[in-house]
């Protein structure tokens, strides 16, 4: 479980908590070596000997009834253990109607084909459509009214490690290797299907190949089905989706439609109006919310109504800042449309509308970095290549969550950080090591992290950007408790008063005199010493501070007015997150949020065939995700200002990107493209038709 560590190039600076400087500027990700050499074991990589392979049988149409299924032929395929049909109706492409268990992946494939299912397709609804908006009267005090409809498509999470679980069943106990964002929630229901108390099995989740919100449902139906098969045969079981299944049935960012009717004055002041939103939730009962308005801007009095629309598609799940990117797209473009209609500069208008003084300072910095003064007024360019500049803003609250932590000093002088919660790629294990090393006063390279294991101290599921913010408080408390115990024992050995000793870069100091080295002190312990901590109101007060994260993004792009193709030049992303723990991984969170946002803006679209209801692009060549050649220069700026505490970072950087890009395209071509993705045909329509 111990991580291999690239040595940090310098000891951590011993600075007070909230001085506005990163705890580590140069620490590398602790699991970097495991990841670049391929030795990191993800759940999907765990294929226990004598395992049973399992896969779902799924509906290939938007809505269909299975008329005939040749279970006998499938069961007769060599290596097939069982075929179970649990239903005959599929309400969306990819809905499971049963499963197959077999001795090998090849036998599974043969059995699926031997089923020879004959389907009777039925009519399928494939989209939100154009629901009528009944808006109230024009808002009071408006000189003009803007009425517009903004839409966004279904975006799939497309985690590269698909959903699934590998279960090592060992008779009276088991290890659950789940690809999950919730190591602890993945236990739920597993006791029932395994027929085993939670004390007899544990969930291990050291590495997760992406989740972005789609792996918050514990072990999911994949894990529970694998658990049932493992228990039935008393053998290990492995069930992971393939790429098509991942697109079809593991959640998505729901499609959205936002209809605004908003009043504004000649000076650009927005006086309010109505916003009606719809979210396309497939067969799910809800989850299609659209965060519009965001409350970042003063838009006067807004009457907001929302409705979820059902159709024949897989249901949504939380997706990195659920509801926000689609709402921000509508909000930012709407503001730019008002700015253009009133002859105002969108930057100037945001300085006026934005509710946060700190974000105003961010706009000033961003405008300088992107070169905002080169921006030409919207609709004034006639060249083939047209330059555009755009802005978006973001914010995220700090949410409390339960988190415990334990830190152990071993006699061999290593320090073990113990947290059961998972690192889904954010750099959580690295951040926790840095927090502990800094708080204890030891070099980073003696710290090892045990993480992603339900037998370790409990931590939150990684949703809502809560993992680092809450676990770090537990870690700080655990490190302080440990330091106190440790120094008491060392002081007793040295025959001095405990309060007289300090740890400085590992050395045990009394005043400015080194009493012992770290190795000597740990060896003198004789046995391990540990300290525990928890996230609580007390630790929150002691180590953190109130406050949320915020940011702004600026986009510089070019539009080819003959082809409609958008070329991104640069994106500047200014983001606060309180005290920066690890500069490299923090910048990576910002860059990653921007890239997912630009991919959402330009490319991604889960397309359902309107005749059959089947997804036409359940793969990675026609479901387009931004690739290397699509990259602009991305400049993350960690805004530290005078922010205190450890604040959330995972979600906010992906919120404003699509909106900022849409604003920049509007600036370049003179007409807004109100539908994502910003496909070339839509851009050309906007150029030719005025209003798209």
């Amino acid at each position: 479980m111990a991580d291999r560590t690239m040595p940090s190039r310098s000891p951590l600076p011993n600075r007070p908590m909230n001085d506005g400087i990163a705890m580590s500027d140069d620490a590398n990700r602790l699991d970097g070596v495991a990841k670049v050499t391929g030795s990191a074991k993800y759940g999907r990589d765990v294929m226990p000997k004598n395992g049973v392979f399992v896969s779902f049988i799924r509906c290939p149409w938007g809505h269909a009834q299975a008329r005939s299924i040749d279970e006998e032929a499938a069961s007769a395929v060599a290596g097939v253990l069982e075929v179970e049909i649990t239903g005959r109706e599929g309400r969306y492409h990819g809905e499971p109607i049963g499963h197959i268990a077999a001795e090998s992946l090849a036998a599974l494939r043969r059995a699926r084909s031997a089923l020879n299912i004959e389907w009777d397709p039925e009519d399928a609804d494939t989209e939100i459509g154009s629901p009528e908006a009944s808006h109230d009267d024009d808002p009071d005090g408006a000189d003009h009214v803007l009425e517009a409809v903004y839409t966004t498509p279904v975006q799939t999470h497309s985690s590269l490690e698909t959903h699934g679980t590998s279960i090592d069943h060992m008779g009276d106990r088991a290890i659950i290797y789940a690809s999950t964002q919730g190591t602890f929630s993945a236990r739920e229901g597993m006791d029932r299907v395994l027929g085993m108390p939670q004390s007899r099995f544990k969930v291990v989740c050291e590495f997760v190949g992406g989740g972005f919100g789609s792996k918050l449902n514990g072990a999911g139906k994949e894990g529970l089905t694998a658990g049932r098969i493992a228990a039935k045969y008393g053998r290990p079981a492995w069930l992971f989706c393939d790429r098509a299944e991942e697109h079809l049935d593991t959640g998505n960012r729901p499609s959205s439609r936002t209809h605004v009717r908003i009043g504004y004055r000649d000076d650009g002041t927005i006086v309010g109006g109505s916003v009606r939103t719809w979210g396309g939730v497939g067969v799910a009962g809800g989850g299609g919310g659209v965060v519009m308005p965001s409350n970042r801007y003063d838009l006067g009095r807004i009457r907001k109504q929302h409705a979820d629309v059902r159709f024949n598609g897989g249901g949504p799940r939380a997706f990195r800042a659920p509801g926000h990117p689609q709402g921000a797209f509508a909000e930012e473009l709407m503001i730019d449309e008002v700015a253009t209609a009133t002859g105002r500069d969108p930057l100037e208008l945001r300085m006026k509308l934005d509710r946060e003084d700190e974000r105003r300072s961010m706009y000033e910095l961003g405008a300088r970095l992107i070169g905002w003064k080169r921006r030409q007024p919207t609709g004034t360019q006639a060249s083939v290549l047209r330059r555009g500049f755009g802005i978006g803003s973001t914010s995220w609250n700090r949410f409390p969550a339960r988190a415990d932590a334990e830190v152990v000093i071993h006699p061999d002088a290593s320090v073990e950080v113990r947290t059961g919660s998972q690192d889904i790629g954010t750099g959580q294990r690295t951040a926790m090591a840095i927090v502990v090393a800094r708080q204890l006063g030891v070099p980073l390279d003696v710290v090892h992290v045990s993480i992603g294991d339900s037998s370790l101290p409990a931590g939150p599921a990684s949703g809502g950007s809560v993992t680092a913010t809450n676990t770090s408080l537990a870690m700080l408390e655990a490190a302080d408790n440990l330091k106190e115990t440790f120094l008491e024992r060392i002081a007793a050995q040295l025959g001095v008063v405990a309060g007289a000793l300090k740890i400085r870069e590992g050395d045990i100091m009394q005043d400015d005199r080194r009493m012992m080295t770290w190795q000597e002190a740990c060896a003198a312990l004789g046995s391990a010493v540990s300290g525990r901590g928890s996230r609580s109101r007390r630790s929150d007060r002691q180590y953190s501070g109130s406050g949320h994260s915020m940011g702004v993004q600026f986009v510089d792009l070019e539009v080819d007015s003959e082809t409609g193709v958008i070329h991104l030049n640069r994106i500047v992303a200014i983001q606060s997150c309180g005290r920066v723990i690890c500069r490299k991984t923090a910048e990576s969170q910002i860059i990653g949020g921007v890239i997912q946002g630009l991919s959402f803006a330009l490319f991604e679209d889960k397309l359902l065939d309107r005749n059959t209801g089947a997804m036409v692009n359940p793969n990675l060549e026609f479901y387009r995700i931004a690739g290397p050649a699509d990259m602009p220069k991305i400049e993350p700026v960690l805004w530290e200002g005078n922010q205190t505490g450890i604040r959330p970072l995972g979600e906010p950087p992906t919120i404003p990107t699509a909106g900022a890009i849409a604003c920049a395209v509007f600036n370049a071509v003179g007409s807004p493209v109100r539908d994502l993705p910003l496909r070339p045909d839509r851009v050309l329509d906007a150029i030719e038709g005025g209003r798209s």
Partner: protein
Amino acid sequence: MSERNEGISRRSFVQTLGMGAAAGALQGHAEARLTGQDEGGTGIVGPGPRPITLRINGNDVRLTIEPATTLLDTLRVHAGMTGSKEICDRGSCGGCSVLVNGALTASCMMLACDAEGAEITTVEGLGTEEALDPVQEAFIRHDALQCGYCTPGLVVAARALLDATPRPSLDEIKQGLSGNICRCGTYTNIFNAVLEASGQAPVTDAEVNRG
């Protein structure tokens, strides 16, 4: 056994059969061809498991697999080498990238039996914890990874790029890695890592606001 190496490439099946049918049809097509013929004297084998020797990272590895098994499944399931990832299973994401006689290859698109006799290099063979490839070191230093699932494929692709083009321009890097997809969004750090691994200056680091 020259017959073995001339025919069954998964890519040619895909081209013949059409994308949609390819994944399922591969199995049946290979079997039809294999079972329809005399096993003696033609060099045709299968469909049942047969012994195979692959040269992986300089070692001869003896395995027993069905002839219709892809190189990727052979590595992951049969040889227990899970560094190469199955992400799309149809050659469009680069997650399963290996070097076959030095050429960058999507191992999900090649049958293992077509790789017999070839030098196969997987991510596990590029470097070890004690002796990392410069590409791997640079990936770590530039934090060119997050969840890490695409990373092995990108490391192999970057190594293949630098073998062919020792000092690539930024545009050549973007083109050279365009067979790979990263979902967390690490591309710009990857560009910097490849620039550094080829002895070039990274794109100017992010401006740090200490205000």
